[in-house]
């Protein structure tokens, strides 16, 4: 087997193992919370008999280990359990929410990643001169503001004052692509502004680090233009650190957008989680937690795999 394939398979196996461990931690954490789910549902006035019945019905009288494996088995067959608060199937509710969140995060990623890398390359090209300072200054100030502040500023100008885009990001099934895009454009702008700086700074730093190498001097002595030196000779060697930061930011786009979703009343995973935490709806919290963990681990595995593939020493062994 090609050594790269071995490494990639190893990474994926490790990720799955990690996900299993996280599922145990989530389950234990939720189980350790004080209070009793049956009591929470039926209220203070419930009779002991009614509580016992409900516990049996929900399987709460079983030992924790049995409940954990039941939960795990359910997840593997696509059954995330039933919501306590409204008795609906969690998987069905989440799949729509997750689709919305991924739609928002996907567009934010499609715009922010190339933009951040391009700005990073430009900043490295004009290192220490005004374009570098302008790019760094602008992106650092957008990251320094809390995202809800950025959100309200964007809302004020683009939605209220100039009335270019809708202020509430309403999406529903059956909406056309362009309508959807128009609806989410403001939250996308806010998310782009929030994640741009990290990726841009990392690209810049990684490129500048590579620019110290002897082979960059070789490229300059070949008569290449500065931008071609950076793009052709420096960037391929700076991919690994950049990819790691990009993936962390993509993960943030999926699991960290709660505030932005609330600001724009967007029906995504974040709002869903916040709602059900408030209602002490533990099965939902568990399920959402596990999905977020899966996104994080999945993106980080992807970063590892891309870093491995970007390394010619691993790709082409002696």
């Amino acid at each position, binding site marked *: 087997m090609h050594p790269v394939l071995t490494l990639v398979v190893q990474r994926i196996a490790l990720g799955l193992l990690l996900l299993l461990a996280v599922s145990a931690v989530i389950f234990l954490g939720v189980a350790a919370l004080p209070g009793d789910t049956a009591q929470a549902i039926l209220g203070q006035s419930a009779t002991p008999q009614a509580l016992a019945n409900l516990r049996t019905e929900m399987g709460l009288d079983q030992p924790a280990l049995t409940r954990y494996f039941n939960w795990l088995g359910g997840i593997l067959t696509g059954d995330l359990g039933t919501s306590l608060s409204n008795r609906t199937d969690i998987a069905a509710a989440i799949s729509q929410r997750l689709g919305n969140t991924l739609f928002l995060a996907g567009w934010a990623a499609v715009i922010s990643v190339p933009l951040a890398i391009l700005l990073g390359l430009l900043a490295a090209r004009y290192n220490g001169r005004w374009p570098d300072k302008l790019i760094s200054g602008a992106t650092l100030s957008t990251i320094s503001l809390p995202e809800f502040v950025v959100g309200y500023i964007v809302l004020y100008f683009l939605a209220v004052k100039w009335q270019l885009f809708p202020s509430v990001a309403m999406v529903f099934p059956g909406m056309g692509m362009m309508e959807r895009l128009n609806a989410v454009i403001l939250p996308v702008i806010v998310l782009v502004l929030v994640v741009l700086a990290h990726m841009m700074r990392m690209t810049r730093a990684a490129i500048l680090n590579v620019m110290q*190498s*002897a*082979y960059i*001097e*070789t*490229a*300059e*002595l*070949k*008569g*290449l*233009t500065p931008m071609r030196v950076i793009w*052709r*000779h420096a960037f*391929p*060697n700076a991919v690994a650190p950049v990819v790691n930061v990009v993936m962390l930011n993509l993960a943030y786009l999926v699991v960290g957008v709660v505030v932005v979703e609330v600001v724009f009343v967007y029906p995504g995973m974040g709002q869903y989680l916040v709602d059900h935490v408030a209602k002490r709806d533990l099965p939902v919290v568990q399920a959402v937690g596990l999905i977020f963990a899966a996104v994080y681990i999945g993106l980080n595995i992807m970063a590892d795999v891309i870093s491995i593939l*970007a390394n*010619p*020493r691993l790709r*082409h062994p*002696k």
Partner: protein
Amino acid sequence: MAEMLLEIRNLRIEATSYPPGEPPRDVVLVDDVSVSVAKGRVLGLIGESGAGKSTIGLSSMAYGRGGVRLTGGTITLNGRDIRLVDARALRALRGREVTYVAQSAAAAFNPAIQLMDQVIETCLLHKVMGRAEAEARAVMLFGKLGLPNPESFGKRYPHQVSGGQLQRAMTAMALCPKPDLVIFDEPTTALDVTTQIEVLAAIKEAIHDTGVAALYITHDLAVVAQVADDILVLRHGKRVEYGATEQIITAPGEPYTQALVSVRSIEHVEKTDAPAVLQIQNVTARYQGTKFDVLKNITLDLPAGQTLAVVGESGSGKSTLARVITGLLPPGQGRIRFAGRELAPALAARTRDDLREVQMIYQMADTAMNPRQTVGTIIGRPLEFYFGLKGEAKRKRIQELLDQIEMGKGFIDRYPAELSGGQKQRVCIARALAAKPKLIICDEVTSALDPLVADGILKLLLALQAAEGVAYLFITHDLATVRAIADRIAVMYRGEVRRYGAKTDVLAPPFDDYTALLLSSVPEMKMGWLEGVLEGRRMAAAGN
């Protein structure tokens, strides 16, 4: 008179230096140097580090490394002063009219790009020829430079080929766009001596066949004598002597050039036998997680107060031997006896006296010292650690040691950054001596130094040996150094001792094949040496 290609007049180059704890100041790197290269001729630039050789070489592409500035004079290339042309015109001449071969091809090739794409990049960029033609030319050059499988060589990545092959590939890269001038910046310095001779021959033949002019930069006069038509000797950025190669090496005019020609003239007569201080018995070693032995059944003796030189090329296992003796790498089999007792295999099991009596000096004095400690702290540490010296007693002993290494009073409070390369290595020697060792392992201690400075270090080591009776295990790849210092020699090749004995026996025929190859590969300071050796090898090969 041949047509002039490059004419440098009154060149002055400056840079800003940032000494620690002082305000930045401008320093002159090259001062009033004039030199010219005719079409198809080879000019050798020679001098110690800091002489301005590379700086002058790069100035012929109007390139200043780091903050280096060309501040005066004219650089006329193909009839125009390239200090006056704009950035676009400079890019048009770099890689087209002038190309560059760096000292370390391993670092100068981009690790992420296939060799072929890098080699033909200038051809395509400057529209010298199309891709198909450029690839064909690259394959032709690979073949001419003696690279294996020229047809498929370009498909490889830099990490997949050896250092010597990369150096040749870099030469092919420089010759590919048919330049007028190639700058060779120490192209063989980083190579093993047996590889150096092959690369040198390949470069010389390629220069001859393509009729290109070249600037050949090196610190090794014997090397440059093989390829250059004329030689410019530089020191501290100034011209010392300029003349035809033959005149420079047979009748040098200036005292400095004479010193360069006669360097390595230390006469060291080997000592008679003495009881062994170090006995290495049937030692075999391998690194953890690997499957082959780096050292194979090594047996060596080092008599007390004498020097055993361990010679070999990179990968021969000589530094691993040092790691085994110091206990950093416990041997798989075999024993090490030292001063009449057996040393524990692992470092952790050794007594403090075991540690004290075996000291080390390293190749890179720079990285072997803490840059934030003064010379006094660095030398004082073993005094405190092994002998518990404090205060005035310690300071007095430090001063004694500084006197022994011929450095004055002022040095005790200096930082390593304020010392020259030779002074740094002297401080490392003093630190080793401070422990009053019976054995010092010297790992390539003169390899990073200029020849004259290295000579000074060798003389110091010999004097210290006479005074203190300390034994040296002297690891080196340089046979001239071995001749200067050794009482016994062990020639290592691929983890085995190929030849071992008293110096005069090892260096006298009959030789085994490897030792013969090694000895004949050391450049000699005479013209035509390279051709002579290669001719001899061809005849020997034909005779077999």
